């Protein structure tokens, strides 16, 4: 049974501002047919950068349509800067709340708005959440997006992550990776808090710390990413800042493995262990 508020039902059964705007000043498109929901938001903006008209088209469930309808009502009459302040929670609040499993519908609304504003300004979104490594293959959700939702909404469980961005809702094979991202975000936040208080000054790692953290990062973060594509990696040795690894599985034969070495393995190790690390591939 549906646990929708009267407001959600109203916006679903009588959606406001459905349709296309001719020559829109800004368009934001998110989602896809394969994901199960998609939203196209179109804006008309006047000289003072005020949104004078907003229309939408949505493919999705009842709350996706209601969220899009609510969003168009919310942005009308606002300046772009004012509209940019709207969060997914604001959209949910406007509808007197959304069921927990449907929070991703309001997230889709906010993302379409962000995309439309960026489109108007002709800029690329600073850290587009769509870039990064696809973690959830069923719904095409990246590690950046998951980390963003975890931080933004203070999520601590995989179920919550699924509610907010659908990641992990399909075949579930990415659950260990999602857990690793949650752990990583909160580990980092904890460290940041400690650093902020001056309790744990950033200090040089000892050799043994460096080796152990490298090993842990390879096991918990990097291997699941590569295994998702049928590949694997083995940590061979750590010598000072030199980390030596060997690819296994499909990575071993993959021509893109050099890119993976830098963009995934080295990037993750630098992020989570030490900036100074250099990763090298050892071939048998």
């Amino acid at each position, binding site marked *: 049974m549906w646990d929708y508020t009267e407001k959600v039902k109203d916006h679903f059964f009588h959606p406001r501002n459905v349709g296309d705007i001719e020559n829109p000043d800004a368009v934001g*498109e998110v989602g896809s047919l394969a994901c*199960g929901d998609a939203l196209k938001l179109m804006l008309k903006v006047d000289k003072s950068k005020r949104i004078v008209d907003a229309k939408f088209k949505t*493919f999705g469930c009842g709350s996706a349509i209601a969220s899009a309808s609510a969003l168009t009502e919310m942005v009308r009459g606002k300046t772009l800067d004012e509209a940019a302040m709207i969060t997914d929670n604001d959209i949910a609040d406007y509808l007197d709340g959304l069921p927990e499993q449907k929070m991703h519908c309001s997230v889709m609304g906010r993302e379409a708005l962000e995309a439309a504003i960026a489109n108007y300004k002709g800029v690329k979104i600073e850290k587009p959440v769509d870039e990064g490594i696809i973690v959830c293959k069923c719904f095409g959700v990246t590690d950046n997006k998951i980390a963003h939702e975890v931080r933004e909404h203070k999520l601590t469980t995989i179920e919550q992550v699924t509610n907010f961005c659908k990641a992990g809702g399909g075949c579930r094979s990415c659950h260990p990776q999602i857990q690793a991202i949650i752990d990583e975000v909160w580990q980092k936040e904890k460290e940041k808090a400690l650093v902020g208080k001056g309790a744990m000054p950033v200090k040089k790692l000892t050799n043994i710390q460096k080796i152990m953290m490298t090993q842990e990062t390879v096991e918990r973060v990097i291997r699941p990413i590569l295994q998702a594509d049928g590949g694997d990696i083995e940590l061979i040795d750590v010598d000072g800042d030199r980390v030596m690894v060997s690819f296994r599985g499909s990575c071993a034969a993959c021509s893109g493995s050099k890119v993976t070495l830098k963009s995934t393995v080295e990037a993750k190790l630098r992020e989570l262990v030490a900036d100074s690390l250099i990763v090298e591939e050892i071939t048998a």
Partner: protein
Amino acid sequence: MKVVYADNNASTRVAPEVTETMMPYFGEYYGNPSSMHSFGGQVAKKIDVARQQVADILGADPSEIVFTSCGTESDNAAILGVLRAHPHKRHIVTSRVEHPAVYNLCKYLAQNGYHVTELGVDSQGMLNLNELSDAVREDTAIVSIMYANNETGVIFPIEEIGVIVKQKGSLLHTDAVQAVGKLPLNLAMSTIDLLTLSGHKLHAPKGIGALFIRKGTTCTPFIIGGHQEKNRRGGTENVPAIIGLGKACELAKKYLPDEHTFVKQARDKLESEIMKRAPDARVNGSQINRLPNTTNISFEFVEGEAILLLMNEKGICASSGSACTSGSLEPSHVLRAMGVPFTAVHGSIRLSLSRYNTMEEVDYIIEQIPPIIKRLREISPYGRK
């Protein structure tokens, strides 16, 4: 508002005759069928009648019927019971389109030391019997393949499967929850060793099921307790529900021809008219080997939950394989196993009829669905302009 119920693969109306038969056993006849006194004994006699009625619809012997609490319990009792009785055999064969009662049980067993072979299906939802034959090995304790699929209505050639399983020396369990009452069965002349049925899919109440265990099949009890059901299922009998299930089976046997005349005609009309009136739609699953009451239709460019919401507004009850209706965001594993594109899975609607539906109701659904699809497509950014 009038309710048009087209979700009979989810649950069915309890037949008024069934309710009537059950009523005294909620009230005056409250004795325990296991008691020595005749006050309880008269209840035991009624259970015997019900057992005979269930056996009759299956073409089985009453001694082969064990009452359970539901289809899921019957499935668990069959699979776990056979595994426990054959501890040296660690392999199970099943399909990728089973009901969660079997599907998730097998997943659990695979995580707990058993080897599970999941057979895939083709785009029509059918199994490859050569693949099945290759999958059954010396250490295969049980093959569990459903009789008919709850989402698409596709019927598996269960007797042919049984012949293969017998040749390989294994046991065949079938979840026939959707088949009993819709298809003629004769277990006296069958290769099936264990069969699951559920009351609320054939106009009996919820909370009652049965498991057929062929005479001579070794199957360790699942619920261990008293001597009820000849030591095959402990626990005081759910007397009113058992008596209700018996009556429902008697009625189902009587009305079985209706399933292949009236119900089938109604379903065929429903399906062909909707397909005629709504463009960009497809029927999921084989239309040849199919239950007479079920149709599963995918509408491109729209999402199932939104369709159901609008149908609900018109009083029409149905189901969808869409991710948004699953409670877990997981789109139908059945349609995905058939290779139905994700886009079509999201817009899938299952309509399932029963002998209680009328042609007027069918006409009403035919009238209502196409405008609902059209309305949602006007909101959708996809599709033909």
